[in-house]
Every structure is written in structure tokens, then in C-alpha cells.
């Protein structure tokens, strides 16, 4: 053991602050951590530029136990994890799992997340991998800490390990509980100095084994999220609240037309404005810097610049998008997945159904625009950011500025919703570049119109489907062909694809191919062909139609098509939509029994929860103005299965669709915190509902025309269902197995919702809407065309 003076400088600061927090708030330990991002960001933000740590900023070593866990002398523990929390409460869940493995009371622990020089690189957030992948090394590290502490306790208490008991961070001799020692007494302000093994951070392990699921005490309970109190009393310091001495404010001036070339700047138009600092520009990137925030906003609006339109239109207008996609030559195509002999099966089918489904570009449109603060003092660069992939941002900023990595760090703090937008949030690289240009700390914040128009977009999808039924109404042939408009899909703050780099002229020779998903159900369809193609728009660079990851990047679009079409086939077969699905889940042709068993369990659970009335769709339509119906849809994401039912009311006079009731059966394996999982699932379902009935990025042939909350509608309070039921299912064939793993939870819950709504609208009206979103005008036009 070495004394705490050997702890790296930054970590030591964390510990000092931490201990103080613990001592100050004895008895109210959780409160001292309610500041979310953690005391170290407070300290950093408050001390700011002049005293910025001199660096170099270390990469915490994932093979050192001390990088993961610090035991304090007062018998509390702090967990350091390389993740960020986009609002789903993952930090609380990590604490539950690690408290269980360490054998310490949950309320005597804290969790520090996602800052590049204090926490190991687990990649930040993305792909709903928090529990599924990243909780494992945390659990193994905590289990190893417990094992090491038991060994230390054995020496101190002069008793073999197998004669010791441990609970609540206290080790006792079983035969004589008066002989006891606490973890804090054993560590006594020192470090573990234990080296773990593992080829990479995901494989990190010590000698100890993790506990059986049945032995986890806090896991499966619902302690309240530690980040929430500070989010409701106004005390949380968000990334956007960082205010450094000498800090100035910048606002971007975006090209007024996609692909426009900046040909002139009239600086005199803003030079005499109050607080003016500088116009910064390179290539087509342009920003204005002022002393105060409102001054920068005004100056960015007033700055006169001349822009030249591109010679050819960058993209078709949004109403012509699908026509364009149909005619376009794919930039890439996946190898077809073929099962059986689809062509022969179609030839022999009694009935063939064909349909096309369209999902437009949908934006993240976070509640606030991208933002970051950069501090360039002492030849270093610190970025205060809510980027969900803070580690990637560090690498991106270093490469973009040509700075050594060890001189760059990213301090993660809370911010508006991630869902993929902050995996490539743009503002970090912009703030860093401007800070270096002007030699002062600077905060960059995107405005509403800028964020809505220029954030990354979920790709538009055009899916052609064909299905063949035999004489008994059985689905015997199936063809799925998807085209996504996803060419040049952006990465995670890559130095050559981040928007500021694009605007400055960076062009990667080989843009990212993009992707086009195939459906993820477990139906046993004997003859099946699935292929995904990608198409590009005429302008691939500097475009506001940049595609990026949006909450389950392709799933909602592909599942809208696949699960709507299954409903169409069920209707053609005059079968109950649930029964039609279950019948295709009983065969075992291409399944190991595991996923299919869980599919069946989820579908049955949601049907029971809702009170499903078995009958074919559509329902007979009466004379009422309000038509009601229910629809079901299901899908997998990774190993997580989700089945959902929507009940809708459709207003015949206005075309308005209201989802009156939603139900969901969700099986993500081991559930760590049921209450926060339910909220996450419920919110993901409503995000799906918003995308089903409201959301579409609109554009003309020059620019995005969806620029605010009027031109880009979103779900509102009045749209919210009267009732939402979320049932957590454990459909594992061996539900009590001690190694039941957790699977990704959040994104999966959004995936089937668009189809569930579409199927419910069909059930209510007999009209199939194959184009998202189901806004009033579109639904009304469809009802009129069908004379409903």
C-alpha cells in the first residue's frame, strides 16, 4: 500500500473534495452527490482558466483497481465509471450493482462519471449498452475490491477468510462478531494498488467472481435516482452553466443555404456593437464572439456576410424525397439474407400483398441546442461538455486542433437529452477552435433554428415489402427491401467529419457507407429474402441533412415497415393480428428456442396487460365521429424483446390521432432498477409516439424549413395517453438462472411504437397509413380518399 500522496493529482483533488463532502453532510450522504456530475467538475468550473490543472491529463488505467473504486476512511466508497448518463438513471443503477458486489450500503456510495482524466474510458454512452456491456467490468472490479478487502481483514482479524462474514462494509469474525474491522479502517486513506487483468476495458477482471443474481440486494430494488433532487431544486450545475473568469460568448452564423460558399464578410456591420470581440472564420465556418451572451446573439444576427449558392440543388424538397430515393442508384447494398426459396414460394402463393412504407428524416431537436465551453489556458484545452461520448470528443478535439491528446481533456456535465445527438455534438470542437483563436475561454451555444435545422438526422427510409400467403392464410414467402438515405453518416466528433471541419473544407476520401436495417423479429417464415440499400443525396458534405445516430438508429423505420406489413398480411388472411404473429413464433426452424420463447412471453404479457380482444382488423366502422382501434407490434433489439399495444381514437372530421392508451411488455433480462426502467420505457414509448404522429424534417431545395417548435411539431402534454402500462417480463426459459444478464433497455422500447400506432389507426378506420408522420392533414386525406 502506498500513501494517498501517490494518487495522481487530479484524482487527489477529487478525493479531497469528496471527503470534505462526506464529512460535511454526515447522515445525508446522498445529498452531497446530488450535484450530478460530481464535485470535481464544480471545482474545475469554479477555479477555471487561470488555475487550470497544468496537465498532462492522464488516461486512468483500467487495469488498476484504484481507477474504479476509492474507499474512504469514513467507510464510504466512490465509484468511477467511464459512462455518461443521458437521463435514464444509469449512474444510480451502476451504484446499485457495484454496492452489491462490494457489500456496502447503497447510500454510502457515490458515482463519478465520464470525465476523461478521472474515469476510465468506457466510451461514454451509446447503443443502450450501459447495463448490457459496461456494468460487467464495474461489477467485476467491485467484486475484486471485496475480495482484496476480505484478505486484508483476514490478516487484521487473524482469522481465515472462510471464517469471516461481510456486510455493509464491515468485516466480522463469524464465531465472534465483536471482532470486526471496517473497509475504511483497512484502507486507511491508502490505495488498493491491485492490478486487474483483461485485454480491454470490457474484459477487465480480478480473481473474484461476481455474485449470483439471487445474492444481489440492491439490484432489483428502486432506490431513487441520485441526480434528480438537484434537477428539481435548481442546484445542479449543468455544462451550460460553466462560467469561467474572462469567458466570452460565441454564436455561429450558419450558411443561409445548404452548400453556400462564404464570399465576403462585412465586419463593420458589427464592429461597433457593444461587447464585440472578434469575427472568427475559416472556409465556410463563421462565428461572432462578444463579451456577453446576448451581445453575441445580436451580433450573429446583424453580421453582414455574402454567400454564393451552389450550382446544383443540394437535395430535393422534402415532399419529393421518396420519389428521389426510389429513382436513386444505391451507394451500397447489404448481402441479401435469404432463407428457403422465396421466388418459388411467391410463384406458388395463393395471395400476394405488396406495400411501400416511408419514414422521413427525423431530427433529434433536443430541448436546447448544442453547447460547450472551452478553456485554452496554460497551453491546455479543457472542454466542459454534455457530450455523451466525452472520450471520443477528447480524441476528436485533439486531432482537430492538432494538439497532443494528453493536453486535452473533456469534463462531462449534464445537459439536454442525448439519444445520439451528443455523440457528435459539434459544439465541443467549435468551442475549442474559437478558444484557441482568441486565447480566452469561450462558451458556444447553438440557437433554436440552428439546432433544429442543422443537428444530425435519423435517416429517411423507403421500404418495399412483398408477402405471399398460402390457401390457409399462412405466410409462406416474404421480401423486404429497404432503402435508407444514410450515405456519409457522421461519426463521433471525428476530426474530419465534425460539422466545423466540413465547413472548413475537410473531405474524407471515403465517406461512411451508412446502413439500412433489416427487421428484427423472430418469425419463422419458410421463404424469406431481406436486403438493405443505402442512397445518398446530391450534396454529401456541409449539409444540414447529415445523418447520425438517433435513438435506435434504424429500428423505428424498419420496424414501422415490417410490423405494419405483418398486420396487413394478418388482415389479408382475416386473422387476429396477435394470433397471426404467435403462430409464426411456435415453429423452431431457425431459432434456438431462446429468443422465440421470450418473444412469445412478451406478446402474451402485453396482450394480457391490455386485455386484447382477439379478432381480425379492421373493426367494423360505425357512424361515430371518433373511431377507436387497437394495434400491436413487436421487435427485438439485441437481446431485448419489446411488445407494444396502442389504442387510438381517430377523429373523422379532423384526422387527428390520439393514442388513448399504450401498453408495453419489456424483457431486458436482469432488471437493476424497476422504477427508473419503467420511466425510461414509458418515455421511449412517447418518443416513438411523437415520431409517429408529429415529427418530420421538412426542406425546400435550398434549406431546412423546420426551424422551431411551430415548424417542427413535437409531442405535447395534450397528446399524452390517458394510461400507460409497462410490464417488465422475464421470459428467459430458465428465469431463475444465477447468471441472468441485463440487456439494453432504452432504445428497444421505442422501436415498435410507430407500427403499433399505424396498426391501431388501421383497426379503427380500415385505412392503412404507410407514411410517417400521421399528422392530421395526412390522416384526413387518407380517410377521405377511402371514403371513411
Amino acid at each position, binding site marked *: 500500500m502506498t500513501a494517498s500522496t501517490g494518487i495522481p493529482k487530479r484524482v487527489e483533488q477529487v478525493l479531497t473534495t469528496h471527503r470534505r463532502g462526506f464529512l460535511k453532510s454526515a447522515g445525508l450522504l446522498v445529498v452531497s452527490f446530488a450535484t450530478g456530475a460530481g464535485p470535481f467538475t464544480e471545482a474545475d468550473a469554479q477555479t477555471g482558466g487561470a488555475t487550470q490543472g497544468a496537465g498532462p491529463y492522464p488516461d486512468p488505467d483500467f487495469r488498476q483497481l484504484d481507477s474504479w473504486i476509492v474507499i474512504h476512511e469514513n467507510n464510504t466508497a466512490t465509484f468511477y465509471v467511464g459512462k455518461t448518463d*443521458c*437521463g*435514464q*438513471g444509469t449512474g444510480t443503477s451502476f451504484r446499485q450493482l457495484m454496492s452489491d458486489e462490494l457489500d456496502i450500503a447503497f447510500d454510502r456510495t457515490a458515482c463519478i462519471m465520464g470525465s476523461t482524466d478521472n474515469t476510465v474510458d468506457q466510451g461514454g454512452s451509446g447503443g443502450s449498452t450501459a447495463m448490457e456491456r459496461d456494468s460487467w467490468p464495474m461489477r467485476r472490479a467491485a467484486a475484486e475490491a471485496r475480495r482484496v478487502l476480505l484478505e486484508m481483514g483476514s490478516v487484521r482479524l487473524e482469522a481465515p477468510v472462510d471464517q469471516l462474514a461481510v456486510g455493509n462494509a464491515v468485516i466480522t469474525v463469524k464465531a465472534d462478531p465483536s471482532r470486526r474491522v471496517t473497509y475504511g479502517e483497512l484502507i486507511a486513506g491508502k490505495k488498493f494498488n491491485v492490478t486487474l487483468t483483461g485485454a480491454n476495458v470490457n474484459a477487465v477482471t480480478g480473481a473474484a467472481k461476481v455474485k449470483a443474481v439471487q445474492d444481489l440486494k440492491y439490484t432489483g430494488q428502486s432506490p*431513487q*435516482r441520485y*441526480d*434528480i*433532487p438537484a*434537477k*428539481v*431544486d*435548481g*442546484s*445542479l*450545475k*449543468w455544462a*451550460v*452553466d460553466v*462560467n469561467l473568469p474572462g469567458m466570452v460568448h460565441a454564436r455561429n452564423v450558419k450558411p443561409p443555404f445548404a452548400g453556400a460558399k462564404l464570399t465576403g464578410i462585412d465586419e463593420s456591420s458589427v464592429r461597433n456593437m*457593444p461587447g464585440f470581440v472578434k469575427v472568427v472564420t475559416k472556409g465556410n465556418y463563421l462565428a461572432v464572439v462578444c463579451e*456577453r*451572451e*446576448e451581445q453575441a*446573439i445580436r451580433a450573429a444576427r446583424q453580421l453582414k456576410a455574402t454567400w454564393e449558392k451552389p450550382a446544383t440543388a443540394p437535395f430535393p424538397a422534402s415532399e419529393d424525397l421518396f420519389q428521389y430515393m426510389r429513382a436513386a442508384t444505391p451507394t451500397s447494398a447489404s448481402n441479401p439474407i435469404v432463407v428457403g426459396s422465396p421466388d418459388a414460394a411467391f410463384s406458388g402463393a395463393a395471395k400476394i400483398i405488396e406495400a411501400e412504407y416511408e419514414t422521413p428524416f427525423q431530427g433529434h*431537436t433536443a*430541448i*436546447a441546442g448544442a453547447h460547450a465551453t472551452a478553456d485554452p489556458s496554460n497551453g491546455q484545452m479543457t472542454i466542459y461538455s454534455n457530450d455523451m461520448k466525452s472520450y471520443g470528443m477528447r480524441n476528436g478535439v485533439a486531432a482537430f486542433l492538432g494538439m497532443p491528446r494528453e493536453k486535452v481533456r473533456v469534463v462531462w456535465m*449534464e*445537459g*439536454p*437529452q*442525448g439519444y445520439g445527438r451528443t455523440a457528435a455534438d459539434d459544439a465541443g470542437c467549435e468551442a475549442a477552435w474559437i478558444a484557441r483563436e482568441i486565447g480566452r475561454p469561450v462558451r458556444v*451555444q447553438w*440557437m*433554436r433554428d440552428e439546432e433544429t435545422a442543422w443537428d444530425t438526422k435519423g435517416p429517411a427510409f423507403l421500404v418495399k415489402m412483398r408477402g405471399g400467403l398460402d390457401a390457409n392464410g399462412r405466410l409462406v414467402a416474404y421480401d423486404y427491401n429497404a432503402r435508407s438515405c444514410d450515405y456519409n453518416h457522421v461519426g463521433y466528433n471525428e476530426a474530419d467529419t465534425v460539422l466545423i471541419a466540413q465547413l472548413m473544407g475537410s473531405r474524407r476520401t471515403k465517406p461512411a457507407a451508412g446502413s439500412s436495417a433489416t427487421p428484427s423479429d423472430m418469425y419463422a417464415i419458410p421463404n424469406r429474402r431481406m436486403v438493405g440499400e443505402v442512397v445518398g443525396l446530391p450534396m454529401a458534405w456541409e449539409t444540414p441533412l447529415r445523418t447520425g445516430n438517433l435513438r435506435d438508429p434504424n429500428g423505428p423505420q424498419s420496424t414501422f415497415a415490417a410490423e405494419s406489413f405483418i398486420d396487413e398480411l394478418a388482415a389479408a388472411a382475416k386473422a387476429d393480428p396477435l394470433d397471426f404473429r404467435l403462430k409464426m413464433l411456435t415453429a423452431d426452424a431457425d431459432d434456438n428456442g431462446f429468443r422465440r420463447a421470450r418473444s412469445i412471453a412478451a406478446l402474451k404479457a402485453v396482450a394480457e396487460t391490455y386485455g386484447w380482444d382477439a379478432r381480425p382488423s379492421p373493426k367494423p366502422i360505425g357512424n361515430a365521429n371518433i373511431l377507436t382501434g387497437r394495434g400491436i407490434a413487436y421487435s427485438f433489439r439485441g437481446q431485448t424483446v419489446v411488445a407494444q399495444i396502442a389504442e387510438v381514437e381517430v377523429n373523422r372530421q379532423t384526422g387527428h390521432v390520439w393514442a388513448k392508451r399504450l401498453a408495453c411488455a419489456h424483457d431486458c433480462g436482469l432488471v437493476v432498477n424497476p*422504477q*427508473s426502467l419503467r*420511466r*425510461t420505457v*414509458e*418515455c*421511449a414509448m*412517447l*418518443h416513438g*409516439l*411523437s415520431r409517429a404522429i408529429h415529427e418530420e424534417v421538412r426542406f425546400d431545395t435550398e434549406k431546412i424549413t423546420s426551424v*422551431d*417548435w*411551430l415548424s417542427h411539431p*413535437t*409531442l*405535447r*402534454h*395534450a*397528446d*399524452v*395517453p*390517458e394510461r*400507460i402500462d409497462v410490464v417488465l417480463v422475464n421470459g428467459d426459459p430458465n428465469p431463475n438462472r444465477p447468471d441472468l444478464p441485463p440487456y439494453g433497455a432504452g432504445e428497444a422500447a421505442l422501436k415498435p411504437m410507430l407500427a403499433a400506432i399505424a396498426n391501431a389507426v388501421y383497426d379503427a378506420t380500415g385505412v392503412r397509413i404507410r407514411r410517417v408522420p400521421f399528422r392530421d392533414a395526412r390522416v384526413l386525406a387518407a380517410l377521405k380518399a377511402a371514403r371513411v
Partner: protein
Amino acid sequence: MSNITLKVNGSTHTLDIEPATPLLYILRNDLGLRGPRFGCGLGQCGACTVIVNGAAVRSCIVPASSVKSEITTLEGLSSHGRLHPLQQAWIDEQVPQCGFCQNGQIMTAKAMLDKNPHPTDAQIRESMNATLCRCMTYYGIQAAIKRAAKVIADARPASGKEVAA
């Protein structure tokens, strides 16, 4: 630039400021408040909401010099170290996801409950409809408002005399 005086959460501040500056930037950048936040700058989303004269006001579009009455921000809702029943209900119901919009949700709900302590479901939806959440926490918010309304009603003396919530 000119001196303007603002009374915020019981304290008085005099600042030398351009009078047309939207209130939001002064609350955040000069007074260091973290409750009100920039969401749209257009008065469309509600993230910047503060309470003035009992009304929920969108501070991103209100010139600071036009505000003569006391301003209450999210930080000013608790009293004597006790959270407002709405804030407590937000914790009890575990409402937020990212939490960025919740200032607007809580402050708008506060202004509504002060005027109408027993709102129907339809009134809650209507009163809250212009306050946006992109994490879609609406269902939890509506449950929390109902919970807080009950707590406030239960705490009210039988005489019907109003107590400060």
C-alpha cells in the same frame, strides 16, 4: 447601458445593463441562477420560465427593464429548507430524464396550481400544453402535478384559509 433593479427570490440586485437584454441572460450569467435555462429564445418551449406576479413568464423574451415586480425562480420555490410540494412530488414520482426542461414544467405547474388548486386532468393538459419536454416525461409530470395538488390540499387548514405553498 443603464442601471436596472431586479428583485429575485427575496434579494435586490442593481445592474448596469442594456435595458433590452432578455431577463434570462441576466438571471443566468449575472446572478448565477441555474433554474431558468435557454431552450429556444422564442418563448415556445418554456425552459426559461420564471414566476412574476403569480404568472409563468418566459424570461427569454422579456426585456429585463420591463420587469418591475419580484421574480421567483426555481431556486426560490423552497422555503426554510423544505422543497415545494411540486418539487417533492417530482422526486417521489422520479419524473425527470435529462431534466433540462423540468424548470419550465415545475414553474408552469406552480403558477397553475396557485390559480387553480384542484385542476382536472383536462385543465392540467391545457395549462401545461405549451411547456415542452423532448425526453417525453409528460406522463410522469402529470402524475406529479396531481400528487402535489393533493399534498397541498391536504395541508390546507379545514377553515379553508390559504397557506403559502
